[in-house]
Structure formats: C-alpha cells, structure tokens
C-alpha cells in the first residue's frame, strides 16, 4: 500500500488522535453507557488502521513496535482482569468487592471509586486487552496481504516442512 495524498495524511494527523480519545471515553464509561471495554478497545485499535491507510504499510510498520501491543496492552489487560476476578475470592471468584449499594455514602479512598465497583476496572482491563489484540490483528492481516509478494514465511520461522 502506498501513502495517500498530503490532504488525506494531514486529515489523518488531525483526526486519528480523536479516535483514541473517543475510544477511551467509551471504555471508561463502559459500565453504565452503551458500549464497553470491547467496543471502546476496537475503536482505539482503528487508530492503527487510519495510519496504515493514510501513510502506507512500509512507513507505519517501521514505526510500530508489536512487542508494545503484545506485552504492554494485551498481557497487562488480561492479567489485570484475572487479578480483579481473583481478588473477590473471599466470597467467590468474580465477586464485586468494591461495589456499594445505591445511595450509600462512600468515604475516604472509596469515594474516588464508582459504586459499580470492579465492573469499571474490568471494563478498562478489557479495553486495554482489546486495543492490543485488535491492533495486532490489523498488523497481522496487513502482513497477510504482503505474504503473496515475498517469501511465504518469515525467515526466522521453523515450521513443519522447513
């Protein structure tokens, strides 16, 4: 894929960032508004799709570090989700130990946390995970287009027949 015209690239420079802001907004309010962690994460991942379309694969793939998506986003999200579920094990797995009943007064550090409790954090964890995973999917699918042009497998890969 070659880069598009300067108009498109400038438009992308302006607007791609807003996709992240919008996605984060959906992730953070996911526990009580339409959308949620998955949907917000998918919107954040479109950031990479914008860049790929506007700037072309060669340039973008030289910027992107896949390890950041894999370890910082995917792993962090998954492990946060698991730990949040495990913290409730005093009652049961996935128990919402931060929630409080409707209208109850919250004091101290608890007043900073929404009454929805762990649901908020789980939604954020899912958002982080989906951001990483879908960005990796976009990169992998883009590489798939290129696969027919060059050698069929990356040099360092050892498969069944080679």
């Amino acid at each position, binding site marked *: 894929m070659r880069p598009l015209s300067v108009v498109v690239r400038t438009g992308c420079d302006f607007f791609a960032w807003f996709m992240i802001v919008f996605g984060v907004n959906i992730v953070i309010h996911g526990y009580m508004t339409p959308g949620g962690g998955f949907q917000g994460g998918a919107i954040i991942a479109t950031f990479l799709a914008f860049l790929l379309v506007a700037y072309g694969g060669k340039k973008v793939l030289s910027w992107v570090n896949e390890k950041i998506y*894999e*370890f910082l986003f*995917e*792993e962090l999200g*998954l*492990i946060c989700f*698991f730990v949040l*579920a*495990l913290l*409730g*094990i*005093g*009652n*049961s*797995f*996935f*128990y*919402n130990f931060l929630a409080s009943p409707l209208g109850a007064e919250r004091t101290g550090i608890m007043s900073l946390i929404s009454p929805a409790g762990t649901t908020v954090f789980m939604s954020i964890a899912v958002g982080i995970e989906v951001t990483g995973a879908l960005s990796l999917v976009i990169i992998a699918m883009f590489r798939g287009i290129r696969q027919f042009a060059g050698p*069929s*497998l990356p040099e*360092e*890969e*050892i*498969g*069944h*027949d*080679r």
Partner: protein
Amino acid sequence: MNWNEHLPALLLALPLLGAFLAPLCSLGGKTVRNAMFMAISFLTLLVAFFLWRTVLAEGIQYYVMGGEGSRLSLPSGMAVPVRIILEVDALSAFMALCGAIASFAGALFSLNYMSRFTGLSRFASLYLLLTAGMLGMMITGDIFNFFVFIEVSSIASFGLIAFWRDRPAAVEASFKYALISQVGSMFILVAAGCLYGRYNMLNMAAIGSALQMGTMEKLALVFLVGSLAMKCGAFPMHMWLPDGYAEAPTGVTCLLVAVSQASLYGLARVCFSVYGIAIGSAFIPWMIIVFGLASMFFGVAMAVVQHDMKRLIGYHSVSQVGYMLLGLGVGLLVLGDPRAMAEFGMTAVTGGLFHAFNYTMYKALLFLAAGAVYYATGKRDLNDMGGLARKMPYTAVMFLIASAAISGLPPFNGFVSKLLIYESSFAVHPFLAVVALVTSVLTLASFVKVFQTAFLGPEKGVLAGVREVPPAMLAGMAVLTVVVLGLTLFPSWSLSNVAEPAARALVDQSGYIGAIMGGGM
C-alpha cells in the same frame, strides 16, 4: 478459607491464568516457559482429581460466579438462579478428570515433540486455552455458558490444528473444522435462544425443572443433538475429524480427543439432565442409536483401508464414538421404564460412560505413540515403516497395550466397557450387539495390521538410524499407559468407583435439578 469450596472455579482459573501468562513467561526463556506450562497442566490435573474426590465424598458441588457466597444459588428469595453457575456432579467431575489427564499427558509429550519449532509461546497459550474451554464445557451448569466454552475451545483448536501453517493440508483441515464447528456452535446458540425465549432462564437445572415438551423444546433438542453429535464426530458429520486429528501436532491431537468427549458429555447432559423423561417419544433415542451404529460400522470400514497411521487412528475415533452413542441411546430409550432401566438401561449408560473414559485414555495413547513413531522416523505412511520394535521398544510396548485396549481384547479396559454395551444393547435388539461385535473384530484386524507393518517384520534400510524418542515423550505416553493398565488390572474397582457414580449422577435428573433449585445455603 476453604479451598475445597473454590475447586470448580480454580479448575477453570488455572488454565486460563496459564494461557495469559504464557507469552510473558516466554520472555524469560525456554526453561521458564516450559516450567510454567508443565506446572499449570499438573496443577489442573491435581485440582480435577481433588474435585472428583470431593464430589464422590460430598455429593454435587456447585459454584456461583460473582455471588456473595459461592454456594448461594438463589439469592434474596429469587425463584430462579440468575448468575453463572458451575455445577459439578459425579459425571462432570469424572469427565473433567479424564480431560485433565489427557491434557497433562499431551503437554508432557509436546515438550520434546515441539521443541524444534518456533512460536511455542503461542502454542502453550492456545493449548491451555483449549484445556480451559474443554473443562468449562464439562463443568458449566448454564446453557449459554456452554456455548461460550464451546467457542473458546473451537477457536483455540483452529489455531492449534493449523499450527504448522507452512503445510497446506494443516490449513485445510483447520478451515474445514472451523466451518463445521462454527455451524455447530450457531445451532447451539439458536437452541439456547429457543429455551431462553420460552422459559426466561439459561440455567440447565432450572430449565430442566420447568420443561414441558412443546414445539420450541423439540426444536431446541434437535439443534442440540445435531450439533453436539457433529462436534463429537458421529458418522454422517465426521469428515472434519480424521483431517483435524491427523494434521494437528500430536500433543494437541491427544487433547482434541478429550475435547470431542466434552461434546459427548454435553449431549448426555442435555438429553438426560435437561430433558430426561420429558423427551417423551422414542425418536431421539433411536436417532442417537442409529448415529452410533452408523459411526461404528462406517468408521471402522473407512479405517481399515487407510495407510497414513494418524489418519487411520482418526477414523477409528469415529467408530469408537459410536459405542458411546449406542450405550447412551439405549439408556435414554428405556429411561422412563424403571424395570428395563434396572435390567439393562443402567448397564448401557455405565458402559457408554466407562467407554468414554477408556477411549480417551487409549486413543490419546495411540495418537501419542503414532506421533512418537513420526518423530523418530519422519514417516507417516505405514508402507514406509517396518521392524521398529527393535529400535523403539518402549513405544512399541505402549502401542501394543493401547491397540489391545481399543480392540477390546480381554482383560484390557476396552473389553470391560464394550462387554457392558454388548450385553445391554442385545436386550433392545440383537442386531445392535451384532454390529458392535463386528466393529470390534474389524478394529482388531486393523490394529493387527498396523502393529505388524510398523513394529514387526524386517528392518528397512532407511530406518537404520532410528532411535527411541526422548524421555519427556515417553513420560507423556507412560502417564496414559499407567491409567490404562490401572483400569485393566482393577476392573471391578474402576467400575464401581469411577463409572457407576457417574452413570448414577447422569440418570438422576431430580438430584441435578435439586442441587440448584433446592435453595441456597
């Protein structure tokens, strides 16, 4: 804190944690990753074992995800359970133990078998995810959750079957499996939708307590039976099975055998615990029996002409699944008739379930032995092999034990469960037992051929450099051999302590429903 209470959740949480940790651990190098992989597999096996002991000692265990207490199935005076509930009766625990053993053996085998390939952090991750999905299908008490776990296990298996993506055959097998299992899981979703629309409930026990046979229920039953028979490889829908089993890396094939048993478990659970006597007509039981007969006979008929070792064993899977379907179908046929049930119905169900356990063990062992032969010789075609028993004595002995078990030679464990199925199906109609016997004879013929061509006979010149496989692979096979020999040497103990509690739990619909609907604490 009482960990016994949390065993059902831990059984799912451990392999999931392993799947999440695998890429992180592979940053620390090969040793850390392998240690994590083995530790998680072994801990899962331990948890499954303790869960099984607990269920046998204390009766049905259930676990409410996210509830104020893990045993509070009906909170604050509700009439129906609303949360996701894991319900583990003797049958679920029995199947979970069986799956966990296969998963551990496959993981142990994969350590050496896969060591020369790249992408192993993904392999470990998907393998543990597949284990989690399989165990989830076996212990969930919620029909939508069952669909979710089927999807988890299907998606993990697509990746694992196509793990060698440089082989077009592997990609094709994975694609075929993806198509079939996606259609199957959509059927299950439609069935869950039918039942949810009718009863506003998703919990299997709650649906079972309210079920009255009508058009919607019949529709749901047909979708469930059709798709689950497809997923466990019954005859007319079996075409994905030999491909998938033959092309997947061998450690994975061992686990896939157990995953197909999870679908069989789902079929039994739906027919006996959700529908039970309400199933009414004899149509569905006879349909299951006919699936069983067709799978048995055509599966083995297709197997005898194969040359590829893993494909041949894959076709035998189709025929072995037929035995279990026959046993369960006969049990379901006479479920409403207490006298016939006591006379031969219970025997049929016990035989079917015991065969499921035996089958998973010896079939996984056969696949591992075939994989070991491939690892040592680099050949899959039987015509290129010969005289391997001298070079690979341990593998040969274990293969011989597994072939004797699958052919139903007395005193091996396959014989015990097959005998129960012959006896009980004979009482329905002699023809059923005749088909089962003929199948067993053909199975024996087929495995005599395999053992003779691969392990006996003159040595081939090209195989002069072949050596016995590395220790971890032998250990993986040894785990399964020990189980097969244990079931063989103590047939009456294993029948009364392993198979019969599971069969009683399956038939006892009111017990399954009462554990959830009988009120919380």
